[in-house]
């Protein structure tokens, strides 16, 4: 019941936004919806953490989903605050019409609905439907600006992701076929809550085949190389708040799908899915390092960095064990917090300079002082410097690799990280200093507040990592790794 209510909220608000008589209040209406979602998610999560998994009919929420849900609710709410001023600015500049703004808010609500659906459904089949719907709901947001480039990005996005998702359906089907062997004709044979219990008895050949399709399919959506090609296009062409949501939340949803299947496959065929994840992860980080060093577009650079971090998460899952899993979870959270902050501040920069070209952006710290500072902090965080949370995640992953004796993986991982570090630093440092000749302008509070909160949360995760959180994470790791 609570879950249905949670899912209905964004749907209802999409309807409200579509039907609202006046354009003036739509932004705030939309934000109200995001706020309500946040409150409900907090409530739900509290319940789940206290009382264990919530298993109600179609819905199933356990600790793993709680982490993703919390990230989703918090970040989408903060991005919602930011979007008020961002979209307002575009309206003011005449880039958008009031109709576009209404369109934006309607689709943001739908987008959020589909992403929430991914996290709360029990059946892996329904999860597939939800993941496909995220593509459909966000395609219009990618093509939002109706320019040639954004049209191209949207087309690539919807085609490549649909193909990927179609392949994933094959994986789901094969998984279902294998579980039918155990359950007979049962309507619950695709439910995760049931499947994880019997994972070890499923047919290994079918599961192997299934996971290959799943990693090719959901991996496309998660931006793992070499299926990543839609990602930089879509992230760079979408409006910055949407980029932030896609990078910080949408990729997580796909990763969540992979994790669900990974757990089952790993239980039946130890070592198969983890080595695949490891391979795709390493390739993704390497590809991202290469492209970060040659791209000329600020938002594309951030997008490639998202590929890198999804690769790191895949590597962490591939290493496995308790610490590998803790590392993966921390890294997912750290990346979401840091990357959304980066995309928001980059949105400010792009609006201020009117270009995404890295070479023509200089003196960020002078022309937009506060957003510039957040941008700097974000860049330092994303390359993995302490005390930011990504450092923590990466350190735990290296520790996990060393502990499990994968010295080669640890060494490769460190070398790749170093490459990314050099490439990224080389690109962002020149943007900070110098003088752009632009009049310094203060950023409105509605933009700084979300970035500030994201930064504080990130630092809290990186610096303090409060005891209960770590305990909770180990608990989660036991759930993912426990079956391993």
């Amino acid at each position: 019941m609570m879950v249905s209510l949670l899912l209905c909220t964004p749907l209802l608000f999409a309807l409200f936004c579509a039907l609202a008589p006046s354009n003036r209040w739509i932004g705030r209406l939309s934000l109200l919806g995001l706020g309500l979602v946040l409150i409900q998610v907090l409530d739900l999560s509290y319940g789940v953490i206290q009382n264990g998994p919530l298993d109600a009919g179609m819905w199933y929420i356990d600790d793993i989903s709680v982490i993703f849900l919390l990230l989703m609710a918090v970040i989408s709410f903060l991005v919602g605050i930011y979007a008020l001023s961002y979209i307002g600015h575009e309206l003011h500049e005449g880039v958008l019409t009031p109709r576009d703004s209404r369109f934006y808010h309607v689709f943001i609500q739908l987008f959020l609905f589909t992403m929430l659906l991914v996290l709360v459904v029990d059946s892996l089949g329904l999860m597939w439907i939800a993941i496909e719907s995220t593509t459909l709901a966000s395609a219009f947001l990618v093509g939002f600006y109706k320019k040639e480039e954004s049209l191209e990005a949207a087309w690539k996005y919807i085609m490549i992701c649909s193909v990927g998702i179609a392949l994933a359906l094959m994986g789901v089907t094969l998984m279902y076929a294998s579980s039918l062997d155990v359950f007979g004709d049962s309507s619950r044979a695709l439910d995760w809550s049931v499947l994880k219990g019997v994972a070890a008895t499923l047919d290994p050949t079918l599961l192997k085949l299934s996971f290959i399709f799943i990693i090719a399919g959901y991996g496309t959506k998660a931006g793992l190389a070499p299926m990543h090609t839609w990602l930089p296009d879509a992230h760079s062409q979408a409006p910055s708040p949407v980029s932030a949501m896609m990078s910080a939340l949408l990729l997580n949803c796909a990763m969540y799908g992979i994790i669900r299947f990974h757990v089952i496959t790993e239980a039946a065929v130890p070592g198969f899915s983890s080595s695949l994840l490891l391979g795709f992860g390493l390739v993704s980080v390497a590809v991202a390092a290469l492209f970060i060093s040659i791209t000329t577009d600020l938002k594309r650079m951030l997008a490639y960095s998202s590929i890198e971090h999804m690769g790191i998460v895949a590597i962490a899952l591939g290493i496995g064990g308790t610490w590998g899993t803790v590392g993966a979870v921390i890294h997912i959270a750290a990346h979401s917090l840091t990357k959304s902050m980066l995309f928001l501040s980059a949105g400010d920069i792009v609006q201020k300079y009117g270009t995404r070209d890295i070479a023509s952006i200089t003196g960020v710290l002078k022309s937009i002082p506060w957003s510039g500072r957040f941008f700097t902090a974000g860049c330092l965080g994303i390359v993995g410097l302490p005390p930011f949370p990504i450092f923590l995640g990466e350190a735990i992953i290296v520790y996990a690799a060393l502990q499990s004796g994968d010295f080669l993986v640890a060494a490769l991982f460190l070398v790749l990280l170093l490459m990314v570090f050099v490439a990224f630093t080389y690109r962002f440092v020149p943007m900070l200093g110098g003088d752009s000749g632009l009049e310094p302008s203060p950023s409105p509070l509605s933009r700084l507040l979300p970035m500030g909160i994201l930064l504080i949360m990130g630092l809290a995760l990186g610096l303090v990592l409060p005891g209960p959180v770590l305990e909770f994470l180990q608990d989660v790791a036991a759930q993912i790794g426990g079956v391993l």
Partner: protein
Amino acid sequence: MTEIMMNSLNILAVGILLASLMAMTTPRMGQLIRIFTLQSLMLAGMAALVGYQTGSEHLYIIASIIVLLKVFIIPRFLNYSIERIKVKRELEPLLGIPGSLLLSAAIVVLAYFVTEPVISLTEVITRNCLAISLAVTLIGLLLMITRRKAMTEVIGLLMMENGLFLAVISTSHGMPLIVEMGIFFDVLVAVIIMGMFAFRINETFETSDTSILKRLRY
């Protein structure tokens, strides 16, 4: 009886595969849509037959939805789209017809090879259907890769989905009904959205050739 049933299922499955191969050989849009319609019809027949064999009623529902959606609504929408975009045929596929056919044959071999070790399924279906569904899916992907027109890519995706449905029907006699419904809904919405984007591409670039979409790189 079951032997005969198995045989007719095999024939239908091969028919579906043949439709995919035929799609690789034609550059004409109208023909492509007709082939897709035929393939969907065979798929519906297969669903009904499996439903008859196993006595699960929800496969009949699935069969009728396939007929409604993939034999009537979607082909009509596609025809409307090609009329509006004014695209009759694929001018230069990236790979010639003999090449793509041979590649498709290789895909079929690969599909059989990959599904070869799957033994546990022999009771539920013939492995043949699984291999063919895999092949149809991958050939759909090949169609998307080797063609340039936006609408051909959409049809390729739809053929991929037919392959997936073949897998769903043959390996597991259909997923739970709610999942199937959701999948159908997604397919319909996806096709409509893609159609809308194809219109927009046509308006903006004055061609529906997607190979001009090369602005974004690095």
